């Protein structure tokens, strides 16, 4: 299991947090497996339109231009919907980051949790430890690898330990009586992205076609 280190700065000092991904199976204490007729655990794979099975690890991602010529990955940049190149943000490892907060719980409630890390304090500033123990929540930049997106992470503690929650922002609106749901506008926006904890939906999505 990969362990990450996040260094954070608070006014009273610097802390180094050892982060271990929390195993979702252990958190939920159950998971589902598919067994074959002999009781052996099945592996998931893909099957091409002409019936060829494709095992995990047997695919290579690539890019090609409109003429069908392969474009090296290094020559490809990510852009926004308007075609503006997105800035590649460096990973947060290896340099300290400012801890924002304490932030109100509403800040965290405006996000969906994507991943949970258990924090083993490599070196935790005593004032920060005390603050977390009092129920304070902090916000910090956290990117395990270079990325064009910058979702925040939240540091908090409870009776079981200290956790870092990697989160994705949500758009929450105030609605008035007149603002009725424009059903047509949202008809195609149903949430299909896997969320933290949605891993066992895998087996239910056998028939979903994936556009490679």
């Amino acid at each position, binding site marked *: 299991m990969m362990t990450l280190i996040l260094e954070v700065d608070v006014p009273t000092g610097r802390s180094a947090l050892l982060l271990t991904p929390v195993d979702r199976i252990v958190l939920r204490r159950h998971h589902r497996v598919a067994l074959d007729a002999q009781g052996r655990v099945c592996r998931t794979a893909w099957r091409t339109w002409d019936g060829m099975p494709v095992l995990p690890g047997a695919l290579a991602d690539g890019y090609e231009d409109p003429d069908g010529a392969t474009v090296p990955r290094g020559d490809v940049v990510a852009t926004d919907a308007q075609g503006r190149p997105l800035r590649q943000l460096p990973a947060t490892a290896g340099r300290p980051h400012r801890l924002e907060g304490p932030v109100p719980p509403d800040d965290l409630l405006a996000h969906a949790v994507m991943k949970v890390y258990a924090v083993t304090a490599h070196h935790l500033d005593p004032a920060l430890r005390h603050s977390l123990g009092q129920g304070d929540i902090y916000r910090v930049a956290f990117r395990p690898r270079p990325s064009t997106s910058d979702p925040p992470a939240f540091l908090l503690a409870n009776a079981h*330990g200290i956790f870092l929650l990697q989160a994705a922002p949500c758009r929450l609106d105030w609605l008035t*009586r007149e603002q009725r749901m424009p059903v047509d506008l949202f008809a195609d926006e*149903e949430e299909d992205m896997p969320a933290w904890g*949605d891993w066992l939906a895998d087996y239910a999505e056998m028939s979903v076609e994936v556009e490679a």
Partner: protein
Amino acid sequence: MIRQIRLVDHRGRDATVLLLPVRMTETRQSQTLDGHPVRHLRRLKATADTHPDALYARYPDPDDLARALIDGDPEIDRQAVGRATGPCDRVFLDGDGHVCYAPVVTEVRYHADGTERDRRPVGRRAANLVSAQPPVWSGVLVPRREIVRRLAFSRVYQVTHQDALQFDFLYELAQYLHAREAMVQVGSGRQGRGPVYCERNGPAYRGFLDGRINGEAIRVVLYLAAGELTLPEARP
């Protein structure tokens, strides 16, 4: 398809309202450094016969495998390698590597320390956002500050109305929760604290409803948590 949920308020009135997914998604595209559009595609590297697993099975001795790789290139299927896969279906493979069309889905349960406890067949579980029976007000109110430190909310939906009656229902519910600065548990069962299933045979969630008012406007949000924030060794 828009999801619906049947909610009950503190006065025992129930209504079926809408759930909007609210997670913000970024629309990204790719282009070359000089601005030409590119498209992503997946190409085949190996078939079931040339996959490393198959080669290890065929040549258990590493020396034999190395010799075969040098002499005959068994890891390359010249007819297939490099071709774009196109649309694919997800399938299960049995222990022999063949497609398994009728797998038996089994639930594996674990002890607190992460070791396997037992296995049991999975029954059919219907989604229960819109229950046939009127839902029950759980009465479990938890301060926001406390609940965000107990559960990891991985799904968030904004609860919204389609007509003025639904709005009035949601307004009073939001007003009740806003005044108490707390979230109320929503769920199935006789006490309204049971698991929430958004999809048939889907994962079980614990649901909490948050409500705010701002003048004449409301914001009612359903939060779903798949698991508690806890460590394996911290479990009783």
